[in-house]
C-alpha cells in the first residue's frame, strides 16, 4: 500500500516536472528571442543616432542579462525538488 502511494507520488512529481520543464524551456527561448530582438533593434537605432558611451552599452546589458538568466534558470531548476 505504502509502495503504491510512493509510486503514485513519484509519478505525480514527474508529471509536474515534465510540464515545468517545457515552461522553463519556453521561458528560456522567449528570453533569448527578446534579447535578440532588442540587440537588433538597438543596433538599427544606433546607426541613425551615434552612440556616445564609454560604459556598458544597452546591447551589452541585454547580452549579460540573457547570459545571467540562463545561469539563474539552470540553478533554480537544479535546486527544485525532483523526487529522485
Amino acid at each position, binding site marked *: 500500500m505504502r509502495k503504491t502511494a510512493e509510486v503514485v507520488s513519484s*509519478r505525480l512529481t*514527474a*508529471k509536474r516536472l*515534465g*510540464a515545468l*520543464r*517545457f515552461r*522553463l*524551456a519556453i521561458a*528560456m*527561448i522567449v*528570453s*533569448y*528571442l527578446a*534579447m*535578440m530582438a532588442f*540587440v*537588433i533593434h*538597438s*543596433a*538599427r537605432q*544606433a*546607426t541613425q543616432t*551615434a*552612440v*556616445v*558611451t*564609454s*560604459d*556598458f*552599452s544597452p*546591447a*551589452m546589458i541585454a*547580452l549579460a542579462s*540573457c*547570459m*545571467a538568466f*540562463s*545561469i539563474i*534558470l*539552470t*540553478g533554480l*531548476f*537544479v535546486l527544485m525538488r*525532483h523526487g*529522485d
Partner: protein
Amino acid sequence: MMRIPRNCMLLLLATAFTVGADGSAYSAQSAPQIREADLSTIAFFVVFAVLTLLISFWAARRATSSSEYLTAGSSISSGQNGLAIAGDYMSAGAFLGLSGAIYASGLDGMFLAASYLASWPIVLFLVAEPLRRLGKYSFADVLTHKLRERPIRVLAGASTLVIVSFYLVAQMVGAGELISLLFGIGYGPAVIMVGLLMIVFSTLGGMRAATWVQIIKAVLMIGGSAMIATLVMIRFGFNVSDLFKTATSNHPGGNKIMDIRGFAQDAIATLSLGVGILFGTAGLPHILMRFFTVSDERAARVSVFYATCLIGSFFAMLFVIGYGSIALLRGDATYANASGALFGGNNLAPIHLARAVGGSILAGFISAVAFATILAVVSGLLIAGASSAANDLVVGLSGRQLDERMRLRISRIAAMALGVLGILLGLACEGQNVAYLLALATAIAASANFPLLLLAIYWDGLTTRGAVVGGTVGLVSSVVLTAMGPTIWSKVLGLGPAIFPYDSPALFTIPLTLLVCWLVSIAKAEPEEDWRLAQPAVAQYLE
C-alpha cells in the same frame, strides 16, 4: 546606414560554427614575428603531451569493459562532469575565435557567446535527465526504448558519424594550422603529431582519459583566462570605463564596437543561426555522451549547472580579453600591422595579449593550453564516434546484440579508424576553408537529432516510420540547404548567387523535421507489438 563588409560577416559566421570546436576558426597567416616558437611554449607543450599520455596509460588499465571505455563506467562525479562539459565549450575555437571576433568587430562575438550559453538550459530541461535514465552508450538508446531498434540505430549511427566526421576534419585542419604556427613546424607534421597523440589517447584511455584531460584543460583554461583578464584590468586600474574608452579610440569603428553590428543586418539569418545554436547543442553526439558518464539523473542535472556557471564565467573573461586586445594591441607595431590586423591572424588576439600583459611565459602557457584543448575535444569526438559505430551502426546493420568483449573491440577499432581518417582528411584539406563543415554538423544536430530526441521522449504518438522518415528529411534537408547557402554555394564552390539565402537553415529544417515526424506518425499507426512503451522509465517523461 553603415554597411558591414561581407568578409566581416563571414568571419563572424565562421566563428559561430567553431565555438565548441577546435582551432578551425584559426586563420593561419603566418608571419616571421610569430614563426619562432618560444622555449616556454615548447616546454609547456611537452609537459602537457607527457601528462596526457600518462593519463591515457592510467585510464587504459581500467578500460577493460565497454562501459568503462565508452562512458568511464558512469563513475564521473557531477563536479568533474561539469568541468568536462565546460571544457568541451572552452575550446580553442571559442577562446581564439570569439576573442578574435571581438578584436575585429566588437560586440558581435559576444552575441555568439550568449547564444551558446542559452543552449544549455534547453539541454538541461529537455534532454539531460531522460538521456541519463534511458541511455547507456548513445542517444539512440533513448529512441529505441519505444521505437524499433534496427532502423533507428542505423539512422542515429549515420547522423552521428556524419557529424563526428565533419567536426573531426574541420578540427584537424584547424589544429594543423594552429600547431604549425604556434610551434613553428610544418602543417603535415603538425596534423600527424596531433592525430597520432589523439589515436593513442582515445584508443587506450577511452572516455575516462578524455574526461580527465578535459577537466585539467578546463581548469588551466579558466586559470589562464582569469590571469590575462586580471592583468588587463590591472593595466586600467580596474576601471571598465577606461578600458572601453581606450578600445573605442583605438578601433576604427569607434563607439560602434559597443553594439551588435554584423548580426543586426539580416534578422532572419541571425534568427536562423540563433535557433540552430539554441537547439543544436542538444543534438551533438559528443555533448550528449557526457550524460552517460555520470551515475544518475541528479548528477546529470547538477553537472549542467556547474558547466553553465563555468562557461558563463569563461565568456565574461573573453569579453575583457577581447576588448583588452583592442585597447592594448591595436596600434602596437609589435603585434599588429598598420591596418590593425594582428600578425598571425586576429584569432591570435588572446595569445598576443598574454604576451603583452604577462610576457613570453604566460603566452607559452596559453599556447600550450590551446594545444591541450585540441587534443581533449578531438578525443571526445572519437569516443562519441566509436560508441555510435559499435552500438548503433554495427547493431543496426547486423541485427544482433554485441557481447562486452566484441563491443569493446569494435569501439577501439572504430576509434582508431576514425583517427586515421581524420589524419588523412586533415592532410588532404590543407589550406582549405573547412569552417562550413561545422555549420553542417550543427545544422544536422539541430535538425535531425534534436527533434527525434524531443519527440521520442515527450510524445507517445511517435512511430518508428515517423522517426525514420522525419530524421532522414531533417538530415538531408539540413545538408542540402546548407550546401545551397551563401558560404558553400557561392564562396566555396563558386557557383554564383546562393539558391538558399541563409547559411544556417535550422529555422526552417527543425519545424520541417517535426512536421514530417508528426504527419507520418499520425498517418499510419505502428502495429501494437512494435511498441515497448510500457517501460516506466519512458512513461515517466510523458505528459
